[in-house]
């Protein structure tokens, strides 16, 4: 008879700290006077840092698992993979918290609730990265997502904000329904929700039925929505534009990373045996995603939408390594390395995109419209921010001096080539060129001479509040992290996260 093992509280310390902080901020908010609401930020940051410390401490130790059943298989794991992702989520959240300061301050958003929701979402991300169980995955994903619905609509008086929330909500709910239906199929076929056991069951040839593949495909769709892969991406640009800027940053970085965490977990732990089924599927999705993302990004005139479409395209790049499963050689030999490439790319992407968003937040301080034209001559107004933004754009384009982006692309290309899906590499190559166009156009605009009186364009958008020191700190953090990653990409590359399971 299976029984529950005792709970390993150390293993779940980071999410506990996060959720504790969330509750703390919420409660604190009730008791501090209105003019001291600013205290939510330091408290949240402290909680995040504490969780980081806990994560670091866990990283120093061995891998561990908890919530196991006697039949083998555990629902929650603490390993390199989950720790790396946890660290990523924590850092990203910290930066987003910093970025939120002007928004929260200037638009008089309810600070306690704002930070609470952000931290709850963070909690969901951390548990998501540790989940090795379909049920926990689905629930964690919901915990990640539901608070962000609210955050997206947080500028409650702004119809665009509520529209953003509505769109995000609807598409997300549909994707969740699809995901749950898929999970039910997988459960029905394999008899288990734990991914280890799912993998074991899927290894049996008799289970090889179209319905199994369909279940897997539906589960993947659930995460593909989250990473905004085409054709499940359409919510992203609209939502990014309507949501408060820091929330958009959170969506495009942390939330997307969470989607990738989930995707990697289900694919590599649970569905590894069906790599021949999902491999081609992901390869096609990857090709489609980057192509559509880049092509549409070409035409954007709002920086935030440009970043949104770029993040769609970047998701395509991140999916490329998983596409190696499309070839027999690829899934047999290099799948784990390829997954490491995805993981590495996610980390690089997070750093550079956060940086770009941080700069956008800075600029939005006095040009809230976020139109591309507002960036003309930024180098004259704020040279350092312009340099930083140019650097991040170069990173996103994968062009030196943005070595981080370059390495990210190199590992992805390398995975594609080694996995013998060269066609995907070629598609990506062409896409890289297309992408360069819009990144560079923006970057060049920063240094172009300022236009006659573009500063005088009236602000029709609600202001995000003047740039502040926390934003500067955020930019600095992003720059430092990205530069470090540029010089020593070894830090995150080639961590083979989920190898040897299933």
């Amino acid at each position, binding site marked *: 008879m*299976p*029984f*529950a093992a005792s709970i390993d509280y150390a293993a*779940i310390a980071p999410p506990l700290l996060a*959720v504790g902080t969330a509750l703390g901020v*919420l409660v604190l908010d009730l008791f501090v006077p209105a003019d001291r*609401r600013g205290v939510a930020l330091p408290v949240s940051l402290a909680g995040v840092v504490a969780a980081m410390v806990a994560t670091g401490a866990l990283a120093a130790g061995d891998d561990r698992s908890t*919530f196991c*059943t006697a*039949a083998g298989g555990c*629902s*929650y794991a603490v390993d390199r993979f989950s720790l790396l992702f946890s660290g990523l989520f924590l850092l990203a959240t910290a930066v987003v918290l910093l970025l939120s300061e002007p928004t929260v301050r200037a*638009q*008089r*958003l*309810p*600070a*306690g*609730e*704002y930070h*609470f*929701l952000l931290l*709850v*979402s963070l*909690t969901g991300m951390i*548990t998501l990265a540790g989940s090795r*169980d379909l*049920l*926990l995955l689905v*629930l*964690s994903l919901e*915990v990640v997502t*539901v*608070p962000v*619905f*609210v955050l997206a609509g*947080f*500028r*409650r*008086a*702004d*119809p665009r904000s509520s529209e953003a*929330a509505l769109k995000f909500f609807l598409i997300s709910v549909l994707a969740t329904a699809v995901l749950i*239906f898929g999970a039910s*199929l997988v459960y*029905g*076929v*394999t*008899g*288990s929700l734990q991914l280890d*056991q799912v993998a074991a069951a899927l290894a*049996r040839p*008799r*289970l090889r*039925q*179209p*319905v199994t593949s*369909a279940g897997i495909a539906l589960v993947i769709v659930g995460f593909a929505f989250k990473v905004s892969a085409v054709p499940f991406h359409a919510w992203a640009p609209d939502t990014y534009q309507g949501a408060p800027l820091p929330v958009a940053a959170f969506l495009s970085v942390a939330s997307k990373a969470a989607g990738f965490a989930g995707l990697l977990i289900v694919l590599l732990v649970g569905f590894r045996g069906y790599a021949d089924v999902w491999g081609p599927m992901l390869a096609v999705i990857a090709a489609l995603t980057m192509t559509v993302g880049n092509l549409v990004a070409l035409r954007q005139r709002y920086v935030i939408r440009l970043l949104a479409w770029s993040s769609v395209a970047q998701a395509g790049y991140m999916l490329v390594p998983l596409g190696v499963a499309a070839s027999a050689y690829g899934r047999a030999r290099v799948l784990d390395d390829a997954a490491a490439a995805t993981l590495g790319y996610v980390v690089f992407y997070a750093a550079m995109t956060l940086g770009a968003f941080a700069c956008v937040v800075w600029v939005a301080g006095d040009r809230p419209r976020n139109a591309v034209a507002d960036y003309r001559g930024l180098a004259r107004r704020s040279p350092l921010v312009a340099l930083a933004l140019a650097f991040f754009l170069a990173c996103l384009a994968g062009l030196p001096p943005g070595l981080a982006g370059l390495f990210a692309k190199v590992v992805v290309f390398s995975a594609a080539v080694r996995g013998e899906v060269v066609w995907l590499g070629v598609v990506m190559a062409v896409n890289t060129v297309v992408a360069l166009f819009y990144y560079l156009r923006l970057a060049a605009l920063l240094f172009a001479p300022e236009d006659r009186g573009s500063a005088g364009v009236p602000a029709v*958008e*609600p202001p995000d509040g003047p740039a502040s020191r926390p934003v500067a700190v955020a930019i600095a953090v992003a720059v430092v992290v990205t530069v470090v990653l540029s010089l020593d990409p070894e830090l995150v590359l080639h961590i083979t996260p989920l190898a040897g399971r299933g």
Partner: protein
Amino acid sequence: MSPADLLAGALPVPRTAPGFLGWDPQEAVFVALALLALAAGVLVVTTRNVIHAALWLVVALGAVAGCYLLLTAEFVAWVQVLIYVGAVVVLLLFGAMLTRAPIGRSADLDSANRPAALLAAVATFGALGGLLVDGFRAAYVDLDTAPGGPAATGGAIFRYFVLPFEVASVLLLAALVGAIVLSRPDIGADRPPDGRGAP
């Protein structure tokens, strides 16, 4: 016996399986309830009256709860009745009222997307139904030996699904807080938002 053992050979084929689509009494009741649920569902998505739709939804969800009962999942069935019929539908009705949905028939409830929707729905049903039937055409549920009941379910939750339970509670709390924040524009703001963006 763990599910893995059950799966040892193949897709499970229980001992006393009658032929494909053979009938037994439980099945007849189930099919009736299922048809009821589906019919109510059809009305939910086609009726021209928002309030009617909510009521038909109650019928559909209730029928599904009946199906759960037949499947020996009593706990799920009662939760379904309580939460869905009791809470969700009421919530939806409130929503309909608060948004001043037209009480009574309205031609404006459907969008221009209906043909695509029909196509997608038929294709979905075809695909999913086809795949499911294809995969489980001979599968037979042995209702007599199925574990279940409220006690077992509750035990399972607190023995094996502690973490999901806790996560779910966080989710509910977040949803609660979020819903409150969104519905009450006065929260957090010291004064009503100025006229820069909206009222």
